[in-house]
């Protein structure tokens, strides 16, 4: 009976859990309210699915957790580390100091400890400036009060040796336990965005440890001795140790897990995913089974960053959205929402707020709550039309061609989405749609990636591509995927303007299955 998987998704409103059998079919599922103390919410959900499925904890081989913990810490400026930020690039780069663009309160929350030191490289790997070991050592000593370090060196995606030397010095000066984030491991070319992402990563390591420990404790408490993973932004998994080091890679795991879960449950590899929650609807694109990534810098907590994030449109419409009648007779839905208070405040639950869920209850498309709310028929149709138009437009924006595409609807608020969306070949609401995110994290693969500039002066394009591919595959195997299942899942090639020797930037991602 080995080989069962437990997937848990901790969202802002609900904690979902599923158990998949050895064929990865869902055999138990639950949705429980997220609790202040995450660990107890996880336990409630886990107990429920174990109970439902009848599997013994010894049958669980893998346990996967998706969480928005890190995202919330940034938006709420809560639990963030004080970070020592070291940039190597002087005498270049000094005209834009680190944190210049950050909101003051977020910069203050991570402590405003910054330095720009000698070092870094040119685009072709030549040294920009000599590395000054004494200068770095003095700087690290002056930052001895910080909780974590973030290091960003100019063109470290091309050559990371100066960042590695700083790491060594930090280890010598402050020991092995202080978290150190290196920008070459976090982001791509564009030093400000990469440095921002690296600083956020360093700021999040304590919060990540808290979430990981809650997860580990919950598993220990139930004697679950399975291998533990975290879901990450690209819809693949990372080991707990890796999540502790790179918490920034979990900030968008929620929507990515939904996309992957929707793909798995529907058996569709390419299409548009509509994930309807209590307050918002996330619309993403599914490309060959994976979430399509955003091609522009993504802002997190009002700060520009440049690491891998899914391409999403978020609409302020969900099951708890409040329906409002304007003076001019028009009707709007959201963005205000009763959220997790739906079962107290919605009309169908005896409350006083007309919510999106009440529209469906009134229309008789769903049997929910205690009473059938008495809502004027015109209001119901106007509000449903409003929701339809918003979703159709967003679906259209996510499409890559005029041809209709499959649309897969998941999430607790799926009833809001009509079955005949314009631009859709068909609207699918697969079984277990309400826990698609927990399914998504449970079935996820393990990935590895490379993003580097190659000069085609001294090697052919094919050689550069082969090098990138084998590095990506190596990274995927290192992250835990079974060697024979690793495949290249994404290749991106960008010619670099103005540079001699036909320089090209190659990004390759590989992913593979966990051993069953």
């Amino acid at each position: 009976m080995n080989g069962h998987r437990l997937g848990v998704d901790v969202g802002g409103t609900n904690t979902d859990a599923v158990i998949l059998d050895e064929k990865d079919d869902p055999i138990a599922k639950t949705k429980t309210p997220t609790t202040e103390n995450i660990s107890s919410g996880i336990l409630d959900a886990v107990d429920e699915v174990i109970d439902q499925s009848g599997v013994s904890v010894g049958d669980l081989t893998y346990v996967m957790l998706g969480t928005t913990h890190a995202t919330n810490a940034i938006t709420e400026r809560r639990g963030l580390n004080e970070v020592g930020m070291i940039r190597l690039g002087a005498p270049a780069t000094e005209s834009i100091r680190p944190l210049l663009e950050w909101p003051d309160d977020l910069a203050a929350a991570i402590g405003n400890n910054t330095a720009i030191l000698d070092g870094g490289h040119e685009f072709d790997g030549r040294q920009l400036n000599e590395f000054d070991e004494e200068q770095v050592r003095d700087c690290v000593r002056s930052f001895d009060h910080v909780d974590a370090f973030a290091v960003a060196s100019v063109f470290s995606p091309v050559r990371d040796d100066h960042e590695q030397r700083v790491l060594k010095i930090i280890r010598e000066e402050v020991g092995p336990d202080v978290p150190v984030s290196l920008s070459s491991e976090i982001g791509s070319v564009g030093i400000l965005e990469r440095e921002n992402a690296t600083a956020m990563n360093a700021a999040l390591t304590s919060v990540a440890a808290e979430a990981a420990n809650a997860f580990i404790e919950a598993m220990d408490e139930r004697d679950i001795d399975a291998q533990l993973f975290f879901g990450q932004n690209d819809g693949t998994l990372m080991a707990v140790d890796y999540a502790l080091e790179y918490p920034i890679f979990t900030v968008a795991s929620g929507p990515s897990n939904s996309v992957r879960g929707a793909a798995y449950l529907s058996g569709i590899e390419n299409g548009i995913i509509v994930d309807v929650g209590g307050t918002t609807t996330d619309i993403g694109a599914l490309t060959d089974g994976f979430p399509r990534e955003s091609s522009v810098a993504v802002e997190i907590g009002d700060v520009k960053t440049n690491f891998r994030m899914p391409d999403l449109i978020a609409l302020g419409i969900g099951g708890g959205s409040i329906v409002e009648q304007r003076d001019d007779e028009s009707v709007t839905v959201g963005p205000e929402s009763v959220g997790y208070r739906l079962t107290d405040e919605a009309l169908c639950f005896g409350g006083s707020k007309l919510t999106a869920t009440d529209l469906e209850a009134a229309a008789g498309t769903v049997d929910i709550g205690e009473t059938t709310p008495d809502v004027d028929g015109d209001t119901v149709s106007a509000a449903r039309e409003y929701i339809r138009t918003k979703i159709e437009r967003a679906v259209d924006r996510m499409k890559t061609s005029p041809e209709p595409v499959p649309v897969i609807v998941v999430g607790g608020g799926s009833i809001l989405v009509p079955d005949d969306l314009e631009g859709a070949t068909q609207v699918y609401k697969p079984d277990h749609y309400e826990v698609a995110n927990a399914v998504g994290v449970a079935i996820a693969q393990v990935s590895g990636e490379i993003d580097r500039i190659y000069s085609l002066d001294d090697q052919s394009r094919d050689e550069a591509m082969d090098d990138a591919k084998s590095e990506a595959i190596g990274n995927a195997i290192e992250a835990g995927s079974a060697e024979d299942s690793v495949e290249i899942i994404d290749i991106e090639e960008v010619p670099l303007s103005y540079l001699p020797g036909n320089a090209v930037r190659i990004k390759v991602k590989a992913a593979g299955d966990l051993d069953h």
Partner: protein
Amino acid sequence: MKIGPAALEDIALGATVLGTGGGGDPHVGKLVARQAIEECGHVKMLQPSELDDDAFVLVSAQMGAPTVAVEKLPGGPEPISSVERVEAEFGRAADAIMPMECGGINSTFPFAVAARKGIPLVDADGMGRAFPELQHETFNVYGVSGTPAAVSDEHGNTCLLDTNDNEQLEWLARGVTIRMGGVAYVTDYPMSGTEVKETAIPGTMTLARSIGRAVQTADGSTVAAIREATHDSIYGTPQSLFEGKIVDVKRRTEGGFVVGSVMVDGLDSDDDRTMEVKFQNENLGARIDDKWVATVPDLITILDRETGDPIRTEALRYGGRVEVLGIPTPEIMRTDAALGVWGPKTFGIDTQFVPLEQ
């Protein structure tokens, strides 16, 4: 007029529209200028007409690869070193700094030079948009020598250039820039106040600012907001050339430039028609089916149809819903002499220049 951080935000956004898809990311230039203004104070902006005839004006710009510019940020003193090297050559301190182009990174970046030098910035430029090379300047078109010019890097290296013509200036400065790590800082086209008045395109920083503010605050149609905001400028009336969805993007590297085209399938009133926009770093020409509707030097900028934000060439992506904006350039950019430097044929587009408003 004094320019501070808030005005810079608007100028940077407007410069993305005027960059017509290229010109480098104005965001980096904006941050460099913002820190310089924080440290040295606001920048006084002068109209060309306010310059004394014998004023000494220098043009300052960053030169090189946009990809390098977002990684190896300027240190601070290097653009000043090139200004000072040209000043030394003339034995005279500059009275004002003028931008080379009003599109892309070089629209905002010179504010940092003016702030650190403590001298005014002239509300004008020599491209009226973004162009790829140093000879693409009204200054060049109307007979100003680009040299003596200086190119400098973050290590304090400065190279003085004295060339036979402005094409040679571009050729040699480009080579030096690559040796300097792919990005360098150039000071060129030393001019008198009279020469500025005769050859520069006036009011382009104000134009960028107005367009930026219009895009930022547009309630409804961005094109209509831009039209309203630029009513008083010397540019023609901005208009919507096409609305549709990107169905294909082709890009390749050729001679150090990103060259390609984007195909847009029409929506709504443009249903059943297809627009192709050709680019070489910047957007060069737009044709519907086989008819050219806009070409260089007129401005062709692709906007996100939903948000109204300008989209830079590298961010164009299959599936994007876009509106193509056209802005007719002023007469000074459309004379026979000017078209000889930057008309469609100089970029390999086989058509005569057709003014966008026709």
